[in-house]
């Protein structure tokens, strides 16, 4: 039972299993994910999102890659068409939630203290502070970190990983676990390409493909609007696909 909303959750921790006597002791077979509890909570979050018909997109990147700026530009671009809400994850401050709220969108800030990632339990606490019935797309802006957030399912439908041109085009090669998790690779701050000089999107894509990830790559500048149409088009397509999948599930 979910202790916040009282809704039913999936079964309890698996405690049985094949037993093997090993002389002085016994071996119990488990074969369960190390993050079993988080995965169960993520499935529970996903059920909340399905019930409300919300597409949930998890944004991950280094600190300063432009996640909040991209969200501000996205909310402006979809104003009047799509209702957006944001769950913000940072170690400290309400700054990002305040920036999002000033666009008119709902925003909840999670401050993790010293925790380097969001987990499904934190997101569950935050989603109960939002009116999901009034939301079409929920963004989760994860803690800026190219390592830890990749290991935790939050219940999202899609992962978007941002790589800003100031970071270097070999980031996918250096942080393979994170970039393998991407359903879309967003090269951001492309207005700075000339100033940076040595970032090649072609090389970033090659490093990305070397992780066997077939996901699309988009080039976006939240500042000058380049690539925003493609980004918004991708979001609307995913929103439609999510809505169709939920409708077919409801019809079963």
């Amino acid at each position, binding site marked *: 039972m979910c202790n916040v909303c009282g809704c039913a959750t999936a079964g309890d921790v698996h405690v049985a299993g094949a037993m093997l006597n090993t002389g002085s002791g016994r071996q119990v077979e*488990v*074969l369960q994910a190390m993050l079993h509890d988080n995965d169960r909570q993520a499935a529970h979050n996903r059920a909340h999102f399905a019930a409300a018909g919300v597409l949930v997109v998890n944004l991950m990147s280094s600190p300063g890659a432009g996640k909040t700026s991209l969200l501000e530009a996205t909310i402006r671009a979809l104003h009047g068409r799509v209702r957006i809400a944001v769950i913000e994850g940072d170690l400290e401050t309400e700054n990002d939630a305040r920036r999002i709220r000033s666009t008119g969108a709902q925003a909840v800030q999670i401050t993790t203290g010293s925790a380097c990632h969001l987990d499904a339990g934190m997101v569950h606490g935050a989603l109960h502070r939002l009116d999901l019935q009034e939301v079409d797309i929920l963004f989760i802006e994860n803690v800026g970190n190219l390592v*830890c957030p990749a290991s935790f399912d939050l219940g999202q439908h899609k992962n978007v990983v941002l790589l800003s041109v100031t970071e270097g085009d070999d980031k996918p*090669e250096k942080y393979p676990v994170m970039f393998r998790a991407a359903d879309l690779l967003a090269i951001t701050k492309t207005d700075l390409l000339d100033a940076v000089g040595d970032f090649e999107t072609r090389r970033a894509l090659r490093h990305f493909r070397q992780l*066997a990830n077939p996901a699309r790559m988009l080039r976006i500048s939240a500042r000058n609007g380049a690539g925003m149409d493609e980004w918004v088009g991708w979001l609307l397509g995913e929103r439609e696909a999510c809505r169709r999948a939920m409708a077919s599930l409801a019809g079963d």
Partner: protein
Amino acid sequence: MHELAICQSILAQVVAIAETHGGRVKRINLSIGPLAGVEPHLLRAAFPLVAAGTACAGARLAIDTPPVRVQCNLCGVASQVRPNRLLCRVCGAWRVTVLEGEKMRIDSVDLVEMENV
């Protein structure tokens, strides 16, 4: 250092198993692939801190680290590869399926009777 959070998750599951089956935990057998994003040595360093005072205190983490293996979607050959270079070793294609290397699993738990501890 998300390994601490992962240790807490392992601990909760293994303590529940020890309570159900009785005894103390001698060894926890894990599989961690290089694509799981978890560092075995950090897990080993963090585990005693979370296990202190529980049924897992003093338990050893035995970590199997299977290498990354992919199968080419074009030529069908399976090969062992580096975690940041998941390309077919034969034809170089990036359209491959990961066969092994993503696991992050508790395989089994070795329990001993209290008097054997």
